[in-house]
């Protein structure tokens, strides 16, 4: 536990020693603001909800989460510090979990900084804040799922750019599997049961419930199992590198 805390602290600090973290936060806030208020027709909707805000998150995260996570293991391998870290009295799973947590905390911070959207909608109307809270929980889990996948792709390569692209492709697949225009296409040549099965693998399908204010245990299990599986795969990949 103590080792995890130490590594989390170091990783978080390393985000903020470079300007990249601040640039990321600004871009994230600008993008969510733009999508919510301009592209999402926030004002024209005439309803007091953050549907326009959360609806875009799978897409905004698609680029930004891999950007946050791509260096996690790729950089560690490239610079040789992985050898240093894993010869410390730290179990590999502790290092993997700690690095993941640090980035997840960073993403949570980005999410917390979107609070003006909550304030705005509360000033303008009378929204159901329970639904908004559920939306935040879902958004946080969604970010965690993307991040765990990025951890995995980051462990596959020494090159951050490769890690980034792989993560975007995998996450894009997780969106498209349940994205309406795509499922509509699939219905033409596949049976509805097949389409539903494929859509069940999509983050969009499982994020929907949260947006409607429902925290369904199946959706929780979905996101947590993606995180668990991707981190486990990270462990397997790292063990593979160490074995040579």
């Amino acid at each position, binding site marked *: 536990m103590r080792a995890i805390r130490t590594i989390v602290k170091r990783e978080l600090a390393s985000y903020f020693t470079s300007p990249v973290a601040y640039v990321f936060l600004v871009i994230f806030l600008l993008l969510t603001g733009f999508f919510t208020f301009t592209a999402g027709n926030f004002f024209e909707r005439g309803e007091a909800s953050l549907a326009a805000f959360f609806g875009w998150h799978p897409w905004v995260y698609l680029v930004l989460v891999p950007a946050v996570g791509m260096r996690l293991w790729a950089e560690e391998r490239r610079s040789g510090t992985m050898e240093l870290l894993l010869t410390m009295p730290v179990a590999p799973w502790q290092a993997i979990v700690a690095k993941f947590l640090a980035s997840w905390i960073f993403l949570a911070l980005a999410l917390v900084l979107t609070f003006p959207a909550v304030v705005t909608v509360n000033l303008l109307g009378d929204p159901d804040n329970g639904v908004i809270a559920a939306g935040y929980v879902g958004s946080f889990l969604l970010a965690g799922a993307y991040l765990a996948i990025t951890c995995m792709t980051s462990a596959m390569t020494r090159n951050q750019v490769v890690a980034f692209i792989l993560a975007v492709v995998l996450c894009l697949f997780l969106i498209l599997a349940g994205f309406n225009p795509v499922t509509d296409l699939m219905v033409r040549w596949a049976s509805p049961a097949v389409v539903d099965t494929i859509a069940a693998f999509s983050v969009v399908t499982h994020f929907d419930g949260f947006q409607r204010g429902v925290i369904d245990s199946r959706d929780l299990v979905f996101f947590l199992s993606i995180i668990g599986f991707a981190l486990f795969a990270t462990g397997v990949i790292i063990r593979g590198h160490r*074995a*040579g």
Partner: protein
Amino acid sequence: MIKIENLVKTFGTKRAVDDVSFSVERGEVLGFLGPNGAGKSTTMRMITGFMPPSSGRISVGGHDVAEEPLKAKRLIGYLPENAASYPDMTVQGFLNFAAELRGLSGAARRKAVARVVDLCFLDSVLHQSIDTLSKGYKHRTCLAQALIHDPDVLIMDEPTDGLDPNQKHEVRNLIRELGRSKAIIFSTHILEEVDAACTRAIIIDRGRIVANGTPAELRGMSELAGAVTLSARGADEEDLAKLGRVEKLNGALRVYPRDKSKSVELAQQIIELVNRRGWKVEGMFSERGELDEVFRRITLPDTVKK
């Protein structure tokens, strides 16, 4: 402290480390020599628990590295090849991080950091970020990290690589000093280091141990060992040839004993000969042997040995 039995590591079909066994006790400094790609780094990575061996056993302080990795790792301080460290951290931040991972906190951590900062002369760069440091300082920062918990076992992969001669000298002295109370393994290409710091040396070639002994023993394997070099006015090659094979050097003659163990007798015979003939002696040396000759002879058997 360190016990290695029948260690093997294969990468695909290549046997990078091939049935290596040795042990290192407290108070020993073991120099690990060998050409590039001989398996030195691979062996060290296995001892430190970074790489699992293909077969064989490693125990550190009584803990099997495969079975109780954390207990073994706690006893080890490790300076990896190229002295990697986190470039975005300050020296102090990095040492604090290492200390915390080693389970030190509060006053104990501050004391540990102060001790290694002192030991590795890092005072002047304490608040500088690591990527702004020169190679020597980076190296010493990583060395400080390895020493932070005052480990019983110290494993260093080329600890003097990239340092200037003064720093090399300091690091060698430090190794010798630390070696009194710890078990140390360090790898090097530089043969003088073996004399300067080691109590024992192992030469490894293509994954196998080809020599294991004290620096003096290794030097004794040299062809030169036991030969007597004489530079004297009037010295006659033919007279000396009766005592052993004679080689003509620039202004001197070198006599090789017929039997290496008889080198003292050879020197005695030469002195008698000099006295009898009345040659004017300018210098006379009994050769101890040269490590690099031994090194080349056993790691390049086909080209040097004729």
